[in-house]
């Protein structure tokens, strides 16, 4: 075992800033990199998904000798139950986020959220229209109320009507498929509750039935996510191209450095706003001013809308504290390592939790309320200024690593860029490029970081290789974080890594959109938002399907989560597959203990839904498999088109 431990080098990152900080720290303060090494070897039963802890007779783990649980549960039941509970965990997290957005609207209508208002009424009109609501004779507030009501309905309904956010954002063929397979969610909360009930000891043991319920929950996840993104855009504006910087070099020694971390824009938007107003207070404290920066998806939210620089992504979240230059880390929900508190104890950083359901012992807790949002934000910023005062300037050591980043590519912003080269049918710019062979397809990079693979390496390697092979790349979440940090989200990367087809495609967009980019140029990787915004990239897939006149399984679009980690990644991956997208995951999930569940995920899902999973941990091999998946679809689409022409029929519906 000790040998096993020796084999693992804790320097498991390719981010030069992270490496620099890690090396300077010399193991003084423990971070995730060190804890990963200590944790080796990890439990193989858990890894395969064949450890059942659902009842108190357990844990039951499947071995050659004991090939069933004590209750008689087959490995496929145990694996399927664990899997769909993970999906439900992810869905619950997104639901939590989305519900918070809905609550905020509720408070707004009650007059209890004075700091929030409709920022983007065009987005509101778009969402309302998509939901089939008429604008006539209604004020914007009335219209928003109607949207809010539907959102509440989609969250809570017990009737058989499908979630509207799902129904109105997917091609009809998808809904027909979901109906036939009985995976249409009644509502977000119902699906979550159903799954928890269905996976209780002694309820469902049919693996296919369990998986289908998991997929229903995943579609509920999609619904919740889409609602969250839509409301965020309405309240804070739909992202447009914006240029800033990324990686730890964005901290400035003489500024009050505040990192916002987590997932929700409700507080972080307020912090960014009040920070602008409170520059004088900072100056009074001896600083040059206040600088906000982001970690994880709260970071992505304020990057996309406000151009706030990216500090780092998930896995290296503890390291900025070790520079001694970070005054406060304000966190809300999800993906916040409890480890940040222990690290902060050696430095001057204030860890400030803000949400009633997300606290860390030892950390500052400033409870956020919609009613006093700005006030709470000020309180937080003041804590940071206080910290700055106590900072030992001699100890601050900021790595000189940062890259230019152009982000802000919401689906709407992508549409505007494409409109400039293909007026009236913006998406045709992409479909034409794929049809002509200029582009090999479109790939979404999503997901987290995971120490089971080298931090940032899988992301960056696959991005570079796909770009070289002329794949148009969009990204969200911590995958986008990697691209930003490592200089893949700017025009230089286009020159350096894009294949000729992709280069020409991007340059054509550059030429047609020079007026919109403030003198900047388009990046190699198009940042579509935080991880909750993955529905933006599905909107793009769906638009491609509509443009081609096909169902999603025929679209050369692939999703990849090379460093997936969280339960949210499991639920997102599951809805990607259900919606018809081949989905690569760079970390084999906990399903290999059942050949049945694994076979359904990797192969049979394609027969039923069109999407399927590709597990591949080796980034080089993953590139090949992703390109294969794209080529297979382009090839089939081409053959089907030729056949339809020859036989004078409609396009075949098979995939």
């Amino acid at each position, binding site marked *: 075992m000790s040998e096993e431990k020796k084999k693992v080098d804790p320097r498991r990152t390719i981010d030069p800033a992270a490496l620099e900080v890690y090396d300077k720290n010399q193991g003084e303060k423990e971070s995730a990199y060190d804890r990963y090494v200590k944790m080796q070897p990890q439990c193989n039963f858990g890894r395969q998904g064949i450890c059942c802890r659902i009842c108190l007779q357990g844990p039951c783990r499947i071995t050659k000798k004991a090939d069933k649980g004590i209750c008689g549960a*087959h490995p*496929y039941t145990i694996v399927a139950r664990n899997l769909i509970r993970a999906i439900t965990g992810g869905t619950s997290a997104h639901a939590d986020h989305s519900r918070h957005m809905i609550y905020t609207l509720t408070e707004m209508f009650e007059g209890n959220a004075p700091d929030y208002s409709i920022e983007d009424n065009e987005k509101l009109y778009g969402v309302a229209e998509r939901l089939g609501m008429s604008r006539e004779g209604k004020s914007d507030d009335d219209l928003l109320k109607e949207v809010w009501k539907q959102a509440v309905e989609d969250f809570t309904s017990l009737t058989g009507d499908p979630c509207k956010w799902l129904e109105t954002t997917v091609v009809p063929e998808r809904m027909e498929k979901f*109906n*036939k*397979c*009985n995976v249409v969610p009644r509502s977000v909360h119902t699906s979550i509750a159903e799954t928890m009930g269905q996976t209780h000891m002694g309820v469902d043991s*049919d*693996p*296919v*039935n369990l998986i*289908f319920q998991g997929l229903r929950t995943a579609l509920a996840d999609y619904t919740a996510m889409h609602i969250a993104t839509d409301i965020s855009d309405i309240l804070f504006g739909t992202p447009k191209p914006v240029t800033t910087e990324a990686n730890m070099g964005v901290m400035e020694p003489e500024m009050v450095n505040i990192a916002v971390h987590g997932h929700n824009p409700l507080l972080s938007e307020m912090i960014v706003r009040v920070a602008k107003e409170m520059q004088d207070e900072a100056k009074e404290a001896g600083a040059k001013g206040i600088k906000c920066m982001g970690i994880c998806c709260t970071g992505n939210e304020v990057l996309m809308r406000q151009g706030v620089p990216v500090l780092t992504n998930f896995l290296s979240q503890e390291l900025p504290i070790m520079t001694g230059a970070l005054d406060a880390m304000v966190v809300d929900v999800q993906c916040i390592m409890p480890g940040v508190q222990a690290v902060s104890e050696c430095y001057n950083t204030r860890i400030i939790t803000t949400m009633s359901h997300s606290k860390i012992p030892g950390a500052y807790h400033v409870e956020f309320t919609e009613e006093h949002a700005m006030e709470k934000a000020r309180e937080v910023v003041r804590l940071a200024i206080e910290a700055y005062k106590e900072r030992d300037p001699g100890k601050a050591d900021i790595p000189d690593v940062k890259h230019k980043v152009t982000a802000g590519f919401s689906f709407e912003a992508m549409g505007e860029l494409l409109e400039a080269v293909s007026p009236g049918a913006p998406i045709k710019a992409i479909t034409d490029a794929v049809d002509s062979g200029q582009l090999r397809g479109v790939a979404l990079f999503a997901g987290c970081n995971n120490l089971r693979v080298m931090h940032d390496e899988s992301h960056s390697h696959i991005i570079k290789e796909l770009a070289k092979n002329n794949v148009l790349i969009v990204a969200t979440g911590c995958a986008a974080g990697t691209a930003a940090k490592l200089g893949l989200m700017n025009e230089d990367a286009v020159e350096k890594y894009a294949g000729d087809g992709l280069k020409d495609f991007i340059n054509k967009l550059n030429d047609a959109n020079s007026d919109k980019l403030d003198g900047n140029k388009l990046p190699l990787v198009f940042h579509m938002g935080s991880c909750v915004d993955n529905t933006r990239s599905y909107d793009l897939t769906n638009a491609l399907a509509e443009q081609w006149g096909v169902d999603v399984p025929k679209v050369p679009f692939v999703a990849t989560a090379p460093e997936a980690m969280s339960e949210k990644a499991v639920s997102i991956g599951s809805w990607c597959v259900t919606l018809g997208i081949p989905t690569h995951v760079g970390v084999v999930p906990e399903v290999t203990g059942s*050949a*049945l569940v694994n*076979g*359904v995920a*990797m*192969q*049979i899902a394609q*027969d*039923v839904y069109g999407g399927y999973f590709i597990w591949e941990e080796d980034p080089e091999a993953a590139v090949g498999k992703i390109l294969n998946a794209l080529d297979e679809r382009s*090839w*089939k689409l081409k*053959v*089907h088109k*030729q*056949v*339809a022409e020859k*036989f004078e*029929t*409609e*396009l*075949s*519906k*098979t*995939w």
Partner: protein
Amino acid sequence: MSEVISREWEESFEEIFEGAVDESNPPVKLFEKAYDGAVIATSYAEILLNQALRKYGPEQPVGYPETGYYLPVIRALSGEEVTKLSDLPPILNRMRDQIYEEPTFYNARLCGEATAYAAEMIEVLHYLEGDGFHVEPWTGFLGDPIVRRYGILLVDWTIPGQAVIVGKAKSTEDLAKLVQDLQAKGFMIFLCNEVIEQALEANLKMGVDFIAFPLGNFTQVIHAVNYALRAGVAFGGITPGNRQENRDYQRRRVRAFVLQLGEIDEVKVAAHFAAIFLGFPVITDQELDEDHQIPNWYVSNPNYEDILKVAMELRGIKLKITEIPVPITVGPAFEGEAIRKGDMHCEFGGTKTTAFELVESVGENELEDGKVEVTGPEIDDVEEGGRVPMGLVVKIFGRKMQKDFEGVLERRIHDFMNYGEGLWHMAQRDTIWVRISKDAKAKGFKFHHFGELLVAKLKDEFPSIVDRVQVDIITEEQKVEQELERAREFYNERDEKLRGMTDESVEEFYSCSLCQSFAPNHVCVVTPERLGLCGAVSWLDAKASNEIDPNGPNQPIKKEGLIDAEKGIWESVNEFVYLNTNRSIEESSMYSFMDRPMTSCGCFECIMAIVPEANGVMITTREYGGDTPCGMTFSTLAGTVGGGVQTPGFMGHGRAYVLSRKFISGDGGLARLIWIPSELKESLGEELKKRAEEDGLGADFIDKIADETVGTTADEILPFLEEKDHPAMKMDPLM
């Protein structure tokens, strides 16, 4: 015809699996996969089924189009006549109940059977909202008319077996090579999943006309199974629901095998065991460990060069392949290929130029064996789209050749030419119309290759009557006209002779038991005035065939011991039929469909049925899929007529029988005919008029016969028959 030797299986059905598995090292992983696959398939079917029940309700009718066999997998194996959704859950539950976890070969086969049922249910649910979900050339479910269309080719082993190809080949080129090899050998081919796109990309000839069916994806592979299972019930006379007999029939007579190309998953393995359950082996191009295979049943063969050879060996299919020195592929798969004007290099005849074909028997010294001579322009002298005159004179010498066989052999020119990929032939004698495609030209086809093709095929298929062949191809107009005069003398002479040939004028009839490989309880009796019900075997054909192979399927039956001249009953015929139908048919009449009618295998071109309300008979055809006045479609009728069962009032027959003077002469003859599909009416045309006049029914009799434009129920056509004063209305009651 290819010589086929089938492996005989003496053991009772389950015994064929005995000893297949090495008990010391059984392929447990494979069996576990089959179990997993069956769990997935049946659970998925259950979800779809109950969702359909929620949406449509229990009374919702469910079924495939154009079949009289309900859901054929279920109908054949357990007999249920599924017509509505609520019929399905108990059947599915029974199948779920036979999925056992213990990984044994036997249990894996049961899992396979359950998977076949699940797939049948999953597929039929697609048809709840119409069958518009697939487009050409994808076929989905194949209707009964297609099953019957290839009946005769299947039973005479012209089609030596069925290849079910699933998955995706290593490359499009590999797939193309494999399919072309199968087509050249005459196999019936079912394709499922990406091999279809590969075949389409390679521009392979596919579709119903090429006996290559691109079924669809995933569970649509079940359409190969429900096709095969219908054969047993339709031709084999096996009681629907007799599971063992149906499996035995499949194993012995339907020589199918599965080629699994590319990745294998759990559901595929379960489906493979469905094939094995029916007695069909599975061969895959995937590398499998020894303990993941079952010798003779589940075999890994990654090498495409011999994968087909291995499959054929496993199935006991041996072919004698004749090398034909032409640059195109030759096989029955291309028989239905049409060559459109745009794809044509040149054409002959078709009223645009003078063209004819003639087979003449000559003396030993009047020909040079194997010689092919083209007089006049060759293909290279003809511009694209050109029209060329043609005289095709085939000279045959054979020690057993008879003048009577000239016409028999001449009509086979049509088949042989159409077997050539890129060749198209229509009609006969001096009305022929022949096209050569641009593709064939590009491959190097020359006019003289027509000759090479005919020399090879005639010698191959008629070895005992054809000793020497010479083919003269004339493309010079003047010479063609000249030779045509001579050919017409032959035609006239033959016609004279045929006109004089009646059932009374011959000493013997011929039996035809060609279909007994498929329909063991049926035998046809072919007389000069009643050709075989498949339309493919006339009395002269049978006579020639007997000459070729005296112990073959066509045996002479001496006309002895006349019992009933009107109905056509002879003692000797009865005895022959009794002995040759496994002693199931005691008596049969040649000229009556009401009284002890002749039985059918299942290959019939037409079915006649009594319409009591009109006191007459209606006929429907394989080509006509619609409703008829007897209340049944061709498919439904076929289910009651086939398989060697005597069903008074219903009978299968050939199209040309309608023109016979012996057409149900025991029941009142042609005057009884009250309804036929308009397509048949048109194709019989003038000849039917002539026959009616001969019988004193008047030239306008044809206008008194109703068709689907008049109506498709007895009620709809009765006023028409009355108005037209149809003779049947006044005849003696049929019943």
